[in-house]
């Protein structure tokens, strides 16, 4: 059995137990063991990078050190965590001077970054460790009536030079995995464009305008739902629709569903076990198409 250290980050445990639940259930069903390590912290995402890049790099490295000590690779659910940790891992492996500098800082916390572990996103584990064929075989409730607007979020694919996740202009992995569930991954305008989530709290009007654009584009393309991989994208688009209602007087009722949830549902997990009440936009229309 393949084991990973599960890096939960901050947002998922604080706000989105439905993501964690569905991911844990799906991965367990697909034969991946998740290990919860002690002492993990925040990954040091963009807001902290904005304050101090060096400290952020050290925090990311500190968390990777914990995985190194446990002799496990890391899997993240949040794409933001994935980016922070994967970039730090990549940079520190590639740049000996930077590594030395960061290790000098880490020494204060009794850690040393060695660079012998990998940081993977949930999606990579599905693609590379589980495999599309296994997923296809294990699907008991194919989603063949569902038209999904795939939205991977920026930090899974960019900057591609450091993340090496997928082709930055023509990503295929997420769509392949959606289609493995029997659903159709539909094209829609500006599919790869950001949701604006990181501007929430600083420039809410701008963030909301960008999110609205995304919802409208998926809506116009006839999507049944938008599937996400990142808790920030989820929040921005799901909660965002409540704000769109009050600000723009528009109602789209576009369900935002984490891929892990779609996966769990197609693997036969009872929707009642998935804490779907944490969705602001109700998921009933999607569930109807799955039964």
């Amino acid at each position, binding site marked *: 059995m393949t084991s990973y250290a599960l890096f939960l980050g901050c947002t998922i445990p604080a706000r989105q137990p439905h993501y964690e639940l569905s991911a844990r259930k799906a991965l367990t069903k697909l034969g991946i063991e998740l290990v919860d390590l002690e002492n993990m912290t925040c990954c040091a995402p963009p807001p902290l990078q904005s304050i101090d890049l060096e400290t952020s790099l050290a925090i990311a490295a500190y968390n990777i050190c914990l995985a190194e000590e446990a002799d496990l690779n890391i899997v993240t659910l949040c794409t933001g965590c994935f980016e922070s940790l994967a970039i730090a891992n990549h940079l520190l492996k590639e740049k000996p001077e930077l590594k030395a500098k960061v290790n000098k800082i880490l020494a204060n916390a009794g850690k040393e970054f060695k660079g012998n572990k990998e940081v993977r996103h949930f999606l990579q584990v599905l693609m590379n460790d589980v495999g599309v064929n296994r997923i296809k075989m294990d699907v008991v409730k194919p989603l063949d009536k569902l038209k999904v607007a795939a939205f991977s979020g920026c930090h899974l694919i960019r900057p591609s030079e450091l993340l090496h996740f997928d082709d930055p202009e023509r990503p295929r992995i997420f769509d392949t995995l959606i289609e493995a569930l029997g659903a159709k991954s539909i094209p829609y305008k500006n599919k790869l464009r950001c949701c604006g989530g990181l*501007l929430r709290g600083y420039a809410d009007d701008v963030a909301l305008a960008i999110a609205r654009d995304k919802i409208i584009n998926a809506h116009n393309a006839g999507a049944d739902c938008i599937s996400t991989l990142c808790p920030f994208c989820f929040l921005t688009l799901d909660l965002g629709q409540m704000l769109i209602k009050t600000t723009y007087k528009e109602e789209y009722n576009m369900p935002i569903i984490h891929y892990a949830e779609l996966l769990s549902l197609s693997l036969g997990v009872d929707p009642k076990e998935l804490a779907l009440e944490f969705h602001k936009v109700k998921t009933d229309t999607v569930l109807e198409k799955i039964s």
Partner: protein
Amino acid sequence: MTEEKLEKPTIEDFSREITRMLGGETITYCYQCGTCASSCPVAKTTDRYNPRQIIRMALLGQRYEVLNGDSIWLCASCYNCQERCPQKVEIADVIYALRNMAIREGNIPALYAEFANGLMSEGRLAPISKFLEKKRSDYGLPPLKPTGVEALKKIFSATGFDKIFFKKGEQP
């Protein structure tokens, strides 16, 4: 013109200062082609932000305007510009470098200070509510492991991260 701007007016000073920052190394590659601006989801939405213009101002030495303005905080860190830049300017990272500099001058948005305080006290950005803890156990999720906040504190004091906010606290 403000006093501060007159103190540090030269082009070389500011662009060199940026290139010495982590993340700011590539700023001088910029030849102002505008690919970043037309790739930017924020620039498409608001006039308040244009990555090309920020770099232009930075390269012209407009230190005060760049570090005290609103613009640098409007980057959504989507990296679309960086992906497409034909001169390989690491634009999103340059913005981080500029924000790092701005914060050292005491210019920090409230939200970021909140995040930093959360991190320094809890080891995570968002606190876990009692409600969530109960929901977790209701659904059979394992209890959350403690964070390594003590280790983080040692990292903060090594990089001077904690002092950034100490300074801020002194400000009126």
